[in-house]
C-alpha cells in the first residue's frame, strides 16, 4: 500500500471515529473521545507532517462544535501530534509508548477541564480508563486496515 493510500484510509478511519463521537451510540456513559484516539494513533504511526496535518484537520472539526473564540482544539491536537512525533523516536518500547499515550490523554483531560472551568474527577478517571481500553481496539482495527505490522503493537 502506498503512502497516499494509507493516508487516505487514515483520514477515512478518523472520520468514522468522528461520526461515532457525533452520534453517541453509547450515550454519555461512554466518556472516551474516539476522534482523539484516532489522532493519537495517527501521531504514533504516520510520518510527522501528515500526522500533524491530520490532527489539525480533525481538531478543526472539533472546534466547529465549540463556541466562538480561538480554535483551541486545532492548536491542541496539532501540538500533541507534534510532541508525540518528537518523542516517539526516544520512546521506542511498548511501555514507553503506552506512557506517551497516557500522558497525551491526561493532558487532553486537563485542557478540557480548564476549558470547562470546572474539574470533574469522575469524568477524568472514566475518560482515562475507557480511553486506554478503546485505544487498543482502535489501534488494532486501524493497523489491520492500514496494513501496519505488527498489529498488536501500539
Amino acid at each position, binding site marked *: 500500500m502506498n503512502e497516499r493510500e494509507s493516508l487516505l484510509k487514515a483520514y477515512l478511519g478518523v472520520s468514522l471515529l468522528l461520526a461515532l463521537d*457525533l452520534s453517541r451510540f453509547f450515550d454519555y456513559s461512554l466518556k472516551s473521545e474516539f476522534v482523539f484516539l484516532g489522532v493519537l494513533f495517527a501521531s504514533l504511526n504516520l510520518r510527522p507532517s501528515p500526522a*500533524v496535518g491530520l490532527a489539525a484537520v480533525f481538531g478543526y472539526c472539533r*472546534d*466547529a462544535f465549540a463556541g466562538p473564540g480561538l480554535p483551541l482544539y486545532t492548536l491542541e491536537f496539532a501540538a500533541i501530534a507534534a510532541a508525540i512525533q518528537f518523542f516517539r523516536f526516544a520512546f521506542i518500547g511498548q511501555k514507553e509508548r503506552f506512557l506517551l499515550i497516557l500522558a497525551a490523554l491526561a493532558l487532553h483531560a486537563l485542557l478540557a477541564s480548564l*476549558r470547562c472551568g470546572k474539574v470533574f474527577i*469522575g*469524568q477524568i478517571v472514566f*475518560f482515562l480508563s475507557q480511553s486506554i481500553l478503546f485505544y487498543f481496539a482502535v489501534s488494532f482495527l486501524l493497523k489491520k486496515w492500514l496494513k501496519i505490522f505488527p498489529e498488536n503493537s501500539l
Partner: protein
Amino acid sequence: MHVYLPNRIRPHHIRLLILVVAFLVFPLRQFARTVIVVVMQRISYSGAGVSHRGQSGNENAYLKIHLLRLAHLDDENRQLRKALDFQREKKLKLVGTSIIAFDPSGWRRSVMLDTGTLCGAASGMFVINEDAALVGKITETQKNYSRLILLEDPDFNLQVYVGAASLGLLSGGLDSLKVFYVETTEAVKAGDPVWARIPGVDFNLAVGKVKSARKSDSSMFWDIEVEPYSKFSLLQQLFLIH
C-alpha cells in the same frame, strides 16, 4: 558542526504551516460545522433509502430493518400525539425537532437540532420532550440547525423552584444536576418536584425531582441533587416552545 539553514525547511512543512495558519485566520468553522451537520442529517435520514433487493439472503435482514423502522415510526407517532394533546391542553405553540448530532466533547452536553431560524427557532427558546419535561435551552441558531445545551451541561443555569416555591439556581455538572442557593426553612426531601417558570408561558415546566438533599448547620443553603426527567437519544423527538 551542524548548521540549520533555511533549506532544511521542506515543501511539506510549508504546506502544513499554511494549513494551520489558514485554520487560525479564516472563519471557516461555521462552514465546517454546516458540512458535518448536513452529513449527519443525511446519515440520520438515510434509513428511508433502504430498498428491498428481493434476494432470499437479504430478505431477512430487510424485514428486520423494516420491523425496526415500523417500531420507530410507531414510537414517534405516540410521542407526537402526546405532544399534540399537551399543545391543545396548554394552548402552546410547539415546533417538533430532532437531534442530528451530539457535541463530540465528553466535557460538554450539547446537541445539534434539525430546526433552524427558517422554522422559527431562536436563541433562548426552551426545549421539552413528549412528557413536557425540560430538556435544555437553545443557545445558537443557524438557518437550518440550532444548538441546544442540555440540563447537564456545565454552562447550563436556570432559576428553578424546589417543592412548593423555594427559589434556587439549577446548574449542570455533566453527570449530575444541582440546585444552589435554596434558603427555605422547610425541609427539602427526596422526591420533591423541581420545576421552572418560563416567561410568556402560564404553566410550570417539570425539570426533575430531588434525588438527595442535605443542609449542614454551618450553611445557609441546601445542597440539593436533582434527577432530571428527560433522557436523551439520537432518535428522540423534541419540541421547541415558541
